[in-house]
């Protein structure tokens, strides 16, 4: 058997297996063993992801490196993995962020290290699996697999109100995903009712079905099925007004949890819209476009304004996520190839910029145990490296040309202007507002006189923190200056998904 036959399985299962082995076998207090094992597993996964990239043919829109094994054949459930351009981009993002997360938690998590590392690794398996699964049921399994580790990460290693935040996160997510399970089962039954008469949940089988439409909402199976999928994804994104779990989860989650939450978990929502909602329910998608474009625009503007009102740095970044994810939703629903390419690129960009913002907020929180803007000021004098890193992340986040954020926002807005000009005009104000709230942060944290004595002796970034930020910073410049590698691997797949 060649390696390509099992490459994706190896990619998906490596972190989770290491995580389980750690849980079962490793002694409780061998902290550095846990850390190194986690780091190593993340790096191996990254290597496997890069290997998958090297074997990937960007011109081919179909799933590649496919694996298919029957699982519950009587119900048509199978273990199927495959990668297309869209999934590959997000897999690479996930694999890149995971070592960063491990580094960011190296010393910061000192309690129950084993559980933390294992949770992170199992979470990674869930995320990678959800991106790579090409069987709807398997997708659902991986989707729910992500929930538990994240629940523990927030609930065990989180801040003061961690239990509230963790429960809120789980209830929101479950409310959506259980309905999605009903939708998945419906699609499977529809396959049974159609020509071959067998159950199947394979993505390509389902995609061939034409799902009946109908009058109104309750008598329109396609719209109903779309709605249950969309609800699950919309909560994950999160689409305004389903976003209120996000600030709480971010504020309470430990730094590593926030990075993964913002960097990858939210992308599963937008990925779901692109991979499942759009190709499976084209008419329903069409019908829902005005609604989602409106919500996206509201998210952009309201998210930015609410971010501006925040006093807690982490909450501010969390609300900025709501605004940025609004851009992605706009790009997806505007529906042109350009805007969808922009949306996918922006998923990566948001992972990089917001991920690094959370990383950097964590750095300052470790030192000062506060995140309130008013407790800082003048940090540029004492922490020049940190200031530089934060400034790069900020500029990336507000879409300065030369950095990654600009390319994504540009493609989204430019592509969307064809079909949704009014929405683009309103959304573009989000670019102004983004500069307002992020530069306010820079001004109040790094500039102004150094008034708090406690800030005077702050240490600049350690080598460990620099190493954690460096890959993200480099990726920001790289995508900003030369985004073609990302754009070209995804173009064929996106054309297939949106039928463009």
């Amino acid at each position: 058997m060649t390696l390509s036959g099992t490459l994706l399985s190896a990619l998906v299962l490596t972190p989770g297996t290491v995580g389980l082995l750690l849980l079962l076998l490793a002694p409780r207090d061998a902290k550095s063993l846990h850390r190194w094992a986690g780091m190593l597993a993340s790096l191996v996964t990254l290597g496997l992801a890069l290997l998958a990239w090297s074997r990937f043919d960007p011109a081919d829109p179909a799933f590649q490196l496919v694996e298919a094994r029957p699982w519950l054949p009587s119900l048509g459930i199978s273990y199927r993995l495959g990668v297309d351009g869209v999934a590959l981009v997000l897999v690479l993002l996930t694999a890149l962020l995971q070592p960063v997360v491990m580094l960011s938690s190296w010393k910061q998590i000192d309690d129950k290290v084993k559980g933390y590392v294992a949770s992170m690794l199992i979470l990674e398996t869930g995320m990678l699996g959800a991106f790579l699964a090409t069987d709807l049921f398997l997708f659902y399994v991986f989707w729910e697999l992500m929930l538990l580790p994240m629940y523990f990460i927030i609930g065990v290693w989180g801040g003061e109100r961690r239990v509230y935040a963790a429960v809120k996160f789980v209830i929101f997510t479950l409310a959506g995903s259980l309905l999605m399970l009903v939708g998945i089962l419906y699609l499977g039954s529809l396959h049974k009712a159609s020509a071959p008469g067998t159950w199947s949940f394979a993505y390509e089988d389902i995609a061939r079905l034409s799902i009946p439409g109908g009058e109104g909402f309750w008598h329109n199976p396609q719209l109903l099925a779309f709605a249950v999928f969309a609800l699950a994804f919309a909560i994950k994104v999160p689409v305004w007004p389903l976003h209120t779990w996000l600030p709480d989860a971010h504020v309470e989650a430990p730094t590593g949890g926030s990075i993964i939450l913002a960097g990858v978990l939210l992308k599963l929502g937008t990925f779901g819209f692109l991979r499942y909602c759009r190709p499976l329910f084209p008419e329903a998608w069409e019908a829902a476009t005005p609604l989602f474009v409106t919500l996206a625009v509201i998210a952009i503007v309201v998210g930015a304004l609410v971010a501006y009102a925040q006093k807690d740095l982490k909450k501010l970044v969390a609300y900025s996520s709501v605004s940025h994810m609004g851009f992605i939703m706009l790009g997806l629903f505007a529906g042109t190839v350009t805007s969808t390419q922009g949306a996918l690129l922006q998923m990566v960009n948001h992972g990089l910029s917001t991920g690094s913002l959370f990383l950097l907020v964590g750095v300052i929180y470790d030192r000062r145990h506060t995140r309130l803007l008013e407790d800082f000021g003048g940090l540029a004098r004492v922490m020049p490296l940190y200031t530089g890193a934060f400034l790069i992340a900020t500029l990336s986040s507000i879409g300065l040309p030369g950095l990654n954020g600009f390319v994504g926002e540009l493609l989204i807005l430019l592509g969307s202007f064809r079909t949704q000009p009014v929405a683009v005009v309103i959304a573009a104000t989000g670019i102004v507002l983004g500069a307002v709230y992020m530069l306010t942060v820079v001004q109040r944290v790094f500039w102004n006189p150094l008034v708090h004595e406690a800030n005077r002796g702050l240490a600049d970034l350690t080598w460990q923190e620099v190493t954690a930020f460096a890959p993200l910073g480099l990726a920001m410049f790289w995508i900003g200056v030369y985004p073609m590698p990302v754009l070209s691997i995804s173009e064929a797949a996106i054309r297939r998904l949106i039928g463009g």
Partner: protein
Amino acid sequence: MLNLLWLVLAFPLAGAVVLLAGARRFTHRTTAAVGVGATGLSLLVALGVLASYAGRHGEVVTQTLYRWIAAGDFSVEVAFRLDPLSAVMLFFVTFVGFLIHVYSTGYMHDEPPTAFARYFAYLNLFMFAMLTLVLGANLLVLFVGWEGVGLCSYLLIGFYFEKDWCAAAGKKAFVVNRIGDFGFLLAIFMAFKAFGTVDMAGLQAAMAADPAAAARWATPIALLLFVGAVGKSAQLPLYVWLPDAMAGPTPVSALIHAATMVTAGVYMVARTSFVYALSPTALLVVAVVGGLTAVFAATIGLAQNDIKKVLAYSTVSQLGYMFMGAGAGAFTAAIFHVFTHAFFKACLFLGSGSVIHACGGEQDMRKMGGLRHHMKATYWTFLVATLALAGIPVFAGFFSKDEILAKVFAAGAGNLHGYGKVYLVLWGLGVAGAFLTAFYMFRAVYMTFFGSFRGGPEAEHHLHESPGVMVWPLRILAAGSVVVGFVGIGFFGPRFNLFERFLHPVAPGVEVEGWHAGPALEVGLIALSVGVAVAGILLARRFYFGPDAGAIPARLATAWPRLYRTVANKYWVDEGYDAAIVRPTNRLAWWLWKGLDTVVIDGVLVSLAFFTEIAGDLLRFVQTGNVRNYALMVLGGAVAAAAWLLL
């Protein structure tokens, strides 16, 4: 040589990277060598490129580096374009930029090494961004430079970041510019939607190929582009950031906020003149905004006491002139004024920097005076540049400003696009502005250099001429303020106007048809504008020179206290914006958070959870704990199920 064009940009970029990387280790000497060296090499390459370009008669040379973005049907390359327009800009940006780098090594010498390196890194980065803006072959590369200079401007205004007003001024500059960028971006989107390209040449060709679409889209695209120009070039109503930007080091004000970046808006209008030429409405808007700004800013300049603020409002006002010229269809005249303005305004700012340097950081002209005895070179160069700005013949500003006024008058007299009356009014405003300009500039000269020193004996003791690295750039720029005007003399007809002939192929201008000024009228117009300038100078002399200097203005201020306070407080525009936009936005943001997000949305969701809890609270009473009750329920359930099945 032409294919080395990219090197012009590469040197400053490399300089910036090296300086940022080595900021903590470099000494002053190393930093200065790297920073000035990078710009110097860039200047040399630029001169070489321009020399080999000189023989090409307006040809457009494009250098494509690589494909930057391609997605769907959108594709854009990193490409640079050398044509007469960008050649002019390339020349003075590298030339003035180099001089200001040299000057900065003296001006910033007291900064600690790290800050010194940071300063030159930003300055080099600015040069890179500005050259990208100038040379960009498509709207997107231009926009990259556009945002890049905005970033550097932000960083340099906030260079003394520990002073909260500097930090605030930097943020204000960036945010106000972003409002303009909002328009610029929408213009790009619209151009792409309508014509499928953002490349300058491609856009021009597409508009020529489809006149109907061009006519339909020209006005919105031109107006949106102008929104961007208004932000970057500090025109009404977005000019408010520029006076505050004076918080940055003075060489920065000279380079970014006088000579180069703020003129980017004018450059952009000239660059896209093929769009503006199709839209009478857009031209009129440009002219009106420019004319109003020219006079409005000049009146504020009358009552400022901070020497840099006077120059800042003067810059806003002069930029207004440039837009007024562009709005009259005279794009070359506008660029000509950009060109001459770069020399004399940079000279003025650097001169003010020299003064501030001598006065130990003091910027208030009421605490200066008599400085001509202490700093001769600074005084003479400042005077020459002031004469140029005031529009006195043989000095550069005279030729360019007069060219603009002549073109606006022609647009008025020739009834351009049927808006003749508006253009005539604008011409009147322009002449009035020329009077105000001469007045406030000589007010500054008299207050600073004449009379006796008012800053106290301690400070007087420290007065000194600046070192050679600062004085020589002043001398060169002053010389430039005299000579550069001669390349564009319009009086003897187009044949002698080398500048216009050079630029004509790329920015042809809108011809006013059916009207031509006779020689007598032209002489009359020139006499008028020189006359008002001289009148302004004489009035300033009467007010601010001699034993009772300042007495008349003081009397006027007491006679009309309201008027005086309104002007001195800049018409309370900042306060107005604060009350009308900033604070409502803050309130809205707070309300959206605490009201909408926390109470309404989370309230609904929390109340769902609450109802679940209530329901549980009520239903738990069903659990009596009495086994026989449960049995009864089971029986009831079984009977009900049986009944359901049977009936």
